[in-house]
Protein backbone atom coordinates (compact mmCIF):
# COMPACT_ATOMS: atom_id res chain seq x y z
CA UNK A 1 0.00 0.00 0.00
CA UNK A 2 1.01 3.60 -0.49
CA UNK A 3 2.54 5.41 2.46
CA UNK A 4 3.25 9.02 3.39
CA UNK A 5 6.77 8.92 4.77
CA UNK A 6 7.68 12.58 5.22
CA UNK A 7 6.63 16.17 4.89
CA UNK A 8 8.53 19.21 3.71
CA UNK A 9 7.68 22.83 4.39
CA UNK A 10 9.29 25.55 2.32
CA UNK A 11 8.78 29.07 1.11
CA UNK A 12 8.48 29.32 -2.67
CA UNK A 13 10.14 32.69 -3.37
CA UNK A 14 10.24 33.34 -7.15
CA UNK A 15 13.62 35.08 -6.93
CA UNK A 16 15.26 31.84 -5.77
CA UNK A 17 13.93 30.05 -8.84
CA UNK A 18 15.43 32.79 -10.94
CA UNK A 19 18.81 32.51 -9.18
CA UNK A 20 18.90 28.77 -9.86
CA UNK A 21 17.83 29.28 -13.47
CA UNK A 22 20.70 31.71 -14.12
CA UNK A 23 23.18 29.37 -12.39
CA UNK A 24 23.99 31.73 -9.54
CA UNK A 25 22.82 29.57 -6.65
CA UNK A 26 26.32 28.29 -5.82
CA UNK A 27 27.90 31.75 -5.60
CA UNK A 28 29.00 33.15 -2.23
CA UNK A 29 26.22 35.75 -2.26
CA UNK A 30 23.53 33.10 -2.25
CA UNK A 31 25.27 30.44 -0.21
CA UNK A 32 23.70 31.34 3.13
CA UNK A 33 20.32 30.74 1.59
CA UNK A 34 20.88 27.64 -0.51
CA UNK A 35 23.17 25.87 1.95
CA UNK A 36 20.14 25.52 4.19
CA UNK A 37 18.81 23.05 1.61
CA UNK A 38 22.00 20.93 1.42
CA UNK A 39 20.72 18.54 4.05
CA UNK A 40 17.40 18.09 2.29
CA UNK A 41 18.95 17.56 -1.13
CA UNK A 42 21.07 14.69 0.24
CA UNK A 43 18.22 13.27 2.31
CA UNK A 44 15.78 13.20 -0.59
CA UNK A 45 18.27 11.34 -2.79
CA UNK A 46 17.97 8.48 -0.33
CA UNK A 47 14.26 8.84 0.31
CA UNK A 48 13.42 8.74 -3.40
CA UNK A 49 9.74 9.69 -3.15
CA UNK A 50 7.70 8.30 -6.03
CA UNK A 51 5.15 11.05 -5.75
CA UNK A 52 5.03 14.43 -4.04
CA UNK A 53 1.63 15.82 -3.12
CA UNK A 54 2.62 19.46 -3.53
CA UNK A 55 0.45 22.02 -1.77
CA UNK A 56 0.80 25.56 -3.09
CA UNK A 57 -1.15 28.60 -4.16
CA UNK A 58 -1.33 29.95 -7.64
CA UNK A 59 -0.33 33.64 -8.01
CA UNK A 60 -2.63 34.80 -10.81
CA UNK A 61 -1.07 32.47 -13.36
CA UNK A 62 -3.13 29.31 -13.88
CA UNK A 63 -6.19 31.02 -12.43
CA UNK A 64 -7.47 34.46 -13.26
CA UNK A 65 -10.40 36.27 -11.62
CA UNK A 66 -13.03 34.23 -13.49
CA UNK A 67 -12.97 31.19 -11.21
CA UNK A 68 -11.29 30.98 -7.82
CA UNK A 69 -11.32 27.48 -6.31
CA UNK A 70 -10.69 27.27 -2.58
CA UNK A 71 -9.07 23.83 -2.95
CA UNK A 72 -8.22 22.31 -6.32
CA UNK A 73 -6.44 19.09 -7.28
CA UNK A 74 -4.50 18.58 -10.48
CA UNK A 75 -5.50 15.36 -12.29
CA UNK A 76 -3.60 16.00 -15.52
CA UNK A 77 -0.92 13.94 -17.23
CA UNK A 78 1.59 16.78 -16.93
CA UNK A 79 1.86 20.45 -16.04
CA UNK A 80 3.95 22.94 -18.00
CA UNK A 81 5.59 25.89 -16.24
CA UNK A 82 3.53 29.06 -16.70
CA UNK A 83 4.65 32.31 -18.26
CA UNK A 84 4.25 34.58 -15.26
CA UNK A 85 4.85 37.74 -17.22
CA UNK A 86 8.48 37.45 -18.30
CA UNK A 87 8.66 34.04 -20.01
CA UNK A 88 8.24 30.56 -18.53
CA UNK A 89 10.93 29.14 -16.24
CA UNK A 90 13.42 26.89 -18.10
CA UNK A 91 12.59 23.87 -15.95
CA UNK A 92 11.29 20.41 -16.84
CA UNK A 93 7.59 19.85 -17.40
CA UNK A 94 6.10 18.45 -14.20
CA UNK A 95 4.80 14.89 -14.60
CA UNK A 96 1.51 14.08 -12.89
CA UNK A 97 0.28 10.80 -11.46
CA UNK A 98 -3.24 10.55 -12.83
CA UNK A 99 -4.10 7.32 -11.04
CA UNK A 100 -3.18 8.74 -7.67
CA UNK A 101 -4.68 12.18 -8.38
CA UNK A 102 -8.08 10.76 -9.28
CA UNK A 103 -7.96 8.37 -6.35
CA UNK A 104 -7.29 11.25 -3.96
CA UNK A 105 -9.90 13.44 -5.67
CA UNK A 106 -12.64 10.84 -5.38
CA UNK A 107 -11.74 9.81 -1.85
CA UNK A 108 -11.38 13.34 -0.51
CA UNK A 109 -14.61 14.59 -2.12
CA UNK A 110 -16.39 11.61 -0.59
CA UNK A 111 -14.88 12.56 2.78
CA UNK A 112 -16.66 15.91 2.50
CA UNK A 113 -14.12 18.22 0.84
CA UNK A 114 -15.42 20.28 -2.04
CA UNK A 115 -12.44 20.01 -4.35
CA UNK A 116 -12.25 21.46 -7.81
CA UNK A 117 -10.88 18.86 -10.21
CA UNK A 118 -8.39 20.26 -12.73
CA UNK A 119 -7.66 18.32 -15.91
CA UNK A 120 -5.43 20.88 -17.62
CA UNK A 121 -3.27 23.48 -15.95
CA UNK A 122 0.04 25.29 -16.02
CA UNK A 123 1.97 25.68 -12.79
CA UNK A 124 3.73 28.75 -11.46
CA UNK A 125 6.65 29.40 -9.11
CA UNK A 126 4.54 28.29 -6.16
CA UNK A 127 4.94 24.73 -7.41
CA UNK A 128 8.17 24.82 -9.44
CA UNK A 129 10.42 26.74 -7.01
CA UNK A 130 10.08 24.09 -4.26
CA UNK A 131 11.05 21.44 -6.83
CA UNK A 132 14.12 23.50 -7.76
CA UNK A 133 15.05 24.01 -4.11
CA UNK A 134 14.96 20.26 -3.51
CA UNK A 135 16.29 18.92 -6.82
CA UNK A 136 18.33 21.81 -8.30
CA UNK A 137 18.53 21.52 -12.11
CA UNK A 138 17.80 17.97 -13.27
CA UNK A 139 16.97 16.96 -16.85
CA UNK A 140 13.65 15.69 -15.53
CA UNK A 141 12.11 15.98 -12.08
CA UNK A 142 12.86 12.72 -10.21
CA UNK A 143 9.29 12.25 -8.93
CA UNK A 144 5.73 12.64 -10.04
CA UNK A 145 3.60 15.42 -8.56
CA UNK A 146 -0.02 15.70 -7.44
CA UNK A 147 -0.67 19.45 -7.24
CA UNK A 148 -3.03 20.69 -4.53
CA UNK A 149 -3.86 24.32 -5.20
CA UNK A 150 -5.16 26.51 -2.37
CA UNK A 151 -6.67 29.96 -2.72
CA UNK A 152 -4.70 32.44 -0.64
CA UNK A 153 -5.06 35.37 -3.06
CA UNK A 154 -8.71 36.32 -2.63
CA UNK A 155 -9.98 36.71 0.94
CA UNK A 156 -11.01 34.46 2.62
CA UNK A 157 -8.46 31.66 2.39
CA UNK A 158 -9.53 28.35 3.94
CA UNK A 159 -9.07 28.24 7.69
CA UNK A 160 -6.18 26.47 9.40
CA UNK A 161 -8.59 23.91 10.78
CA UNK A 162 -9.93 23.18 7.32
CA UNK A 163 -6.35 22.82 6.04
CA UNK A 164 -5.42 20.32 8.77
CA UNK A 165 -8.63 18.40 8.05
CA UNK A 166 -7.85 18.29 4.34
CA UNK A 167 -4.39 16.96 5.15
CA UNK A 168 -5.93 14.21 7.24
CA UNK A 169 -8.34 13.34 4.42
CA UNK A 170 -5.42 13.14 1.97
CA UNK A 171 -3.70 10.83 4.45
CA UNK A 172 -6.77 8.56 4.51
CA UNK A 173 -6.92 8.57 0.73
CA UNK A 174 -3.29 7.57 0.35
CA UNK A 175 -3.60 4.85 3.00
CA UNK A 176 -6.30 3.26 0.85
CA UNK A 177 -4.34 3.46 -2.42
CA UNK A 178 -3.37 0.03 -3.66
CA UNK A 179 0.03 0.75 -5.19
CA UNK A 180 3.15 0.31 -3.11
CA UNK A 181 4.59 3.82 -3.43
CA UNK A 182 6.47 6.28 -1.28
CA UNK A 183 4.62 9.59 -1.01
CA UNK A 184 5.77 12.88 0.47
CA UNK A 185 3.55 15.88 1.14
CA UNK A 186 5.02 19.35 0.79
CA UNK A 187 3.48 22.52 2.16
CA UNK A 188 4.78 25.67 0.54
CA UNK A 189 4.48 29.47 0.67
CA UNK A 190 5.11 32.03 3.36
CA UNK A 191 6.66 32.76 5.67
CA UNK A 192 6.41 36.49 6.67
CA UNK A 193 5.84 38.82 3.76
CA UNK A 194 3.81 41.90 2.95
CA UNK A 195 3.90 42.87 -0.71
CA UNK A 196 1.77 45.99 -0.77
CA UNK A 197 0.96 49.22 0.97
CA UNK A 198 2.76 51.45 3.42
CA UNK A 199 3.63 48.51 5.67
CA UNK A 200 5.27 46.49 2.85
CA UNK A 201 8.30 44.56 4.04
CA UNK A 202 6.92 43.20 7.32
CA UNK A 203 9.03 40.37 8.71
CA UNK A 204 8.17 38.69 12.01
CA UNK A 205 11.01 36.34 12.87
CA UNK A 206 9.63 35.51 16.33
CA UNK A 207 6.24 34.57 14.95
CA UNK A 208 7.71 32.46 12.15
CA UNK A 209 10.03 30.69 14.60
CA UNK A 210 7.16 29.93 16.94
CA UNK A 211 5.20 28.51 14.00
CA UNK A 212 8.08 26.20 13.10
CA UNK A 213 8.45 25.22 16.77
CA UNK A 214 4.78 24.29 17.11
CA UNK A 215 4.37 22.56 13.77
CA UNK A 216 5.51 19.14 15.00
CA UNK A 217 3.45 18.71 18.16
CA UNK A 218 1.21 21.73 18.61
CA UNK A 219 -0.22 21.99 15.13
CA UNK A 220 -3.81 21.86 16.40
CA UNK A 221 -3.03 25.13 18.17
CA UNK A 222 -1.62 26.62 14.94
CA UNK A 223 -4.78 25.49 13.17
CA UNK A 224 -6.83 27.90 15.31
CA UNK A 225 -4.99 31.00 14.05
CA UNK A 226 -7.42 33.10 11.97
CA UNK A 227 -6.35 34.62 8.67
CA UNK A 228 -6.51 38.11 10.19
CA UNK A 229 -3.78 37.15 12.66
CA UNK A 230 -1.51 35.91 9.87
CA UNK A 231 -2.11 39.21 8.08
CA UNK A 232 -1.51 41.31 11.18
CA UNK A 233 1.57 39.47 12.41
CA UNK A 234 3.32 38.22 9.27
CA UNK A 235 2.03 40.44 6.46
CA UNK A 236 -0.91 40.06 4.15
CA UNK A 237 0.86 37.54 1.90
CA UNK A 238 2.29 35.78 4.96
CA UNK A 239 -1.10 34.12 5.26
CA UNK A 240 0.14 31.64 2.63
CA UNK A 241 1.79 29.87 5.56
CA UNK A 242 -1.58 28.29 6.41
CA UNK A 243 -0.89 25.81 3.58
CA UNK A 244 1.84 24.15 5.65
CA UNK A 245 -0.96 22.83 7.85
CA UNK A 246 -2.26 20.63 5.02
CA UNK A 247 1.17 18.98 4.93
CA UNK A 248 1.20 18.64 8.70
CA UNK A 249 -2.31 17.15 8.80
CA UNK A 250 -1.23 14.54 6.25
CA UNK A 251 1.65 13.24 8.40
CA UNK A 252 -0.30 11.62 11.23
CA UNK A 253 0.04 12.27 14.93
CA UNK A 254 3.75 11.61 15.45
CA UNK A 255 6.46 13.35 13.50
CA UNK A 256 10.14 14.00 13.98
CA UNK A 257 11.72 17.28 12.91
CA UNK A 258 14.88 16.30 11.08
CA UNK A 259 15.90 19.64 9.57
CA UNK A 260 15.15 23.33 9.77
CA UNK A 261 16.36 26.48 8.02
CA UNK A 262 15.29 30.11 8.33
CA UNK A 263 16.68 33.13 6.50
CA UNK A 264 15.75 36.81 6.18
CA UNK A 265 15.34 38.32 3.67
CA UNK A 266 14.86 36.93 0.19
CA UNK A 267 13.65 39.98 -1.65
CA UNK A 268 10.51 40.85 0.40
CA UNK A 269 10.17 37.54 2.15
CA UNK A 270 11.31 35.50 5.13
CA UNK A 271 12.35 32.05 3.97
CA UNK A 272 11.38 29.10 6.12
CA UNK A 273 12.13 25.44 5.53
CA UNK A 274 11.47 22.34 7.60
CA UNK A 275 11.63 18.57 7.11
CA UNK A 276 9.41 16.27 9.16
CA UNK A 277 9.45 12.49 9.04
CA UNK A 278 6.18 10.66 9.64
CA UNK A 279 6.65 8.30 12.58
CA UNK A 280 3.27 6.51 12.70
Amino acid at each position, binding site marked *: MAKITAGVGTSHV*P*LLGRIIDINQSKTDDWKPIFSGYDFTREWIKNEKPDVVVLVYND*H*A*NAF*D*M*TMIPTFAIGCAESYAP*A*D*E*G*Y*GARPVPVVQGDQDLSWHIAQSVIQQGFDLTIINQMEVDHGLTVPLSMMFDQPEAWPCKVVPIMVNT*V*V*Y*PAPSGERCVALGKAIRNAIASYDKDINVQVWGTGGM*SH*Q*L*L*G*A*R*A*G*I*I*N*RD*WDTAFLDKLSNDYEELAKI*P*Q*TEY*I*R*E*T*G*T*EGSETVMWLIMRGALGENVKEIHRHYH*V*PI*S*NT*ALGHIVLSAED
Partner: protein
Amino acid sequence: MALDKPYQDIPGTTVFDGEMARKGFHLNQFCMSLQKEENRKAFFADELGYMNQWPMSEEQKQAVIDRDLTKLISLGGNIYYLVKITMAQGMSVAHAVSMMTDMSPDEYLEMMKNGGRSPDGNRYVGEQQNG
Protein backbone atom coordinates in the same frame (compact mmCIF):
# COMPACT_ATOMS: atom_id res chain seq x y z
CA MET B 1 -21.29 46.81 3.52
CA ALA B 2 -22.48 43.36 4.45
CA LEU B 3 -19.04 41.72 4.49
CA ASP B 4 -17.45 41.07 7.84
CA LYS B 5 -13.98 42.70 7.76
CA PRO B 6 -12.03 41.85 10.89
CA TYR B 7 -8.81 43.06 9.23
CA GLN B 8 -9.93 46.65 8.88
CA ASP B 9 -7.94 47.73 11.93
CA ILE B 10 -4.65 46.67 10.31
CA PRO B 11 -2.79 49.72 8.98
CA GLY B 12 -0.94 50.10 5.69
CA THR B 13 -2.48 47.21 3.76
CA THR B 14 -5.54 46.44 1.66
CA VAL B 15 -6.99 42.96 1.93
CA PHE B 16 -8.18 41.69 -1.44
CA ASP B 17 -11.69 40.74 -0.43
CA GLY B 18 -14.98 40.58 -2.32
CA GLU B 19 -15.35 44.35 -2.38
CA MET B 20 -11.91 44.85 -3.93
CA ALA B 21 -12.34 41.87 -6.28
CA ARG B 22 -15.52 43.45 -7.65
CA LYS B 23 -13.90 46.87 -8.11
CA GLY B 24 -10.83 45.48 -9.76
CA PHE B 25 -12.23 42.67 -11.90
CA HIS B 26 -11.48 44.16 -15.31
CA LEU B 27 -8.24 45.81 -14.15
CA ASN B 28 -6.94 42.48 -12.93
CA GLN B 29 -8.11 40.65 -16.05
CA PHE B 30 -6.19 43.19 -18.12
CA CYS B 31 -3.07 42.53 -16.01
CA MET B 32 -3.57 38.80 -16.51
CA SER B 33 -3.40 39.22 -20.26
CA LEU B 34 0.25 40.26 -19.89
CA GLN B 35 1.10 36.59 -19.37
CA LYS B 36 1.40 36.39 -23.15
CA GLU B 37 4.44 37.84 -24.90
CA GLU B 38 2.42 39.17 -27.84
CA ASN B 39 0.13 41.00 -25.42
CA ARG B 40 3.08 42.51 -23.56
CA LYS B 41 4.36 43.87 -26.87
CA ALA B 42 0.97 45.25 -27.80
CA PHE B 43 0.57 46.89 -24.39
CA PHE B 44 3.96 48.62 -24.44
CA ALA B 45 3.37 49.78 -28.02
CA ASP B 46 0.10 51.53 -27.12
CA GLU B 47 -0.82 51.35 -23.45
CA LEU B 48 -4.15 53.14 -23.55
CA GLY B 49 -5.26 51.55 -26.80
CA TYR B 50 -4.42 48.13 -25.45
CA MET B 51 -6.26 48.71 -22.18
CA ASN B 52 -9.36 49.89 -24.01
CA GLN B 53 -10.13 46.23 -24.71
CA TRP B 54 -11.34 46.01 -21.10
CA PRO B 55 -14.13 48.09 -19.55
CA MET B 56 -11.76 49.60 -17.00
CA SER B 57 -12.44 53.02 -15.45
CA GLU B 58 -10.52 56.03 -16.75
CA GLU B 59 -8.99 56.33 -13.28
CA GLN B 60 -7.72 52.76 -13.46
CA LYS B 61 -6.25 53.26 -16.92
CA GLN B 62 -4.50 56.48 -15.90
CA ALA B 63 -3.09 54.83 -12.77
CA VAL B 64 -1.69 52.01 -14.92
CA ILE B 65 -0.05 54.53 -17.23
CA ASP B 66 1.34 56.33 -14.17
CA ARG B 67 2.47 53.00 -12.62
CA ASP B 68 0.80 54.30 -9.46
CA LEU B 69 0.60 51.02 -7.57
CA THR B 70 -0.82 52.57 -4.42
CA LYS B 71 -3.70 54.00 -6.40
CA LEU B 72 -4.17 50.78 -8.37
CA ILE B 73 -4.48 48.83 -5.13
CA SER B 74 -7.18 51.25 -3.94
CA LEU B 75 -8.98 50.77 -7.26
CA GLY B 76 -9.22 47.00 -6.81
CA GLY B 77 -5.91 45.84 -8.24
CA ASN B 78 -4.38 42.79 -6.63
CA ILE B 79 -0.62 42.85 -6.13
CA TYR B 80 -0.01 39.51 -7.89
CA TYR B 81 -1.84 40.84 -10.92
CA LEU B 82 -0.31 44.32 -10.80
CA VAL B 83 3.30 43.16 -10.71
CA LYS B 84 2.77 41.59 -14.13
CA ILE B 85 2.94 45.16 -15.46
CA THR B 86 6.19 46.01 -13.67
CA MET B 87 7.78 42.58 -14.20
CA ALA B 88 7.03 42.82 -17.91
CA GLN B 89 9.11 45.99 -18.04
CA GLY B 90 11.94 44.31 -16.13
CA MET B 91 11.37 45.85 -12.70
CA SER B 92 12.02 43.61 -9.69
CA VAL B 93 9.12 42.84 -7.39
CA ALA B 94 11.02 44.41 -4.47
CA HIS B 95 11.45 47.65 -6.43
CA ALA B 96 7.76 47.68 -7.35
CA VAL B 97 6.76 46.97 -3.77
CA SER B 98 9.00 49.75 -2.44
CA MET B 99 7.08 52.27 -4.56
CA MET B 100 4.11 51.87 -2.20
CA THR B 101 6.14 52.78 0.89
CA ASP B 102 7.62 56.12 1.94
CA MET B 103 11.11 54.84 1.10
CA SER B 104 13.25 54.85 -2.01
CA PRO B 105 13.96 51.45 -3.56
CA ASP B 106 17.46 51.52 -2.03
CA GLU B 107 16.21 52.43 1.42
CA TYR B 108 13.60 49.69 1.18
CA LEU B 109 16.20 47.06 0.19
CA GLU B 110 18.42 48.26 3.02
CA MET B 111 15.54 47.82 5.49
CA MET B 112 14.91 44.31 4.18
CA LYS B 113 18.61 43.44 4.46
CA ASN B 114 18.48 44.54 8.07
CA GLY B 115 15.69 42.11 8.87
CA GLY B 116 12.67 43.76 7.33
CA ARG B 117 10.00 46.01 8.78
CA SER B 118 9.08 45.16 12.34
CA PRO B 119 5.45 44.30 12.99
CA ASP B 120 5.76 46.43 16.15
CA GLY B 121 3.80 49.60 15.55
CA ASN B 122 2.21 48.11 12.44
CA ARG B 123 -0.40 45.80 13.91
CA TYR B 124 -3.27 48.20 14.67
CA VAL B 125 -4.45 51.45 13.19
CA GLY B 126 -3.48 54.23 15.57
CA GLU B 127 -0.24 52.67 16.73
CA GLN B 128 2.92 54.42 15.57
CA GLN B 129 3.03 53.20 11.99
CA ASN B 130 5.57 52.01 9.46
CA GLY B 131 8.36 52.61 11.98
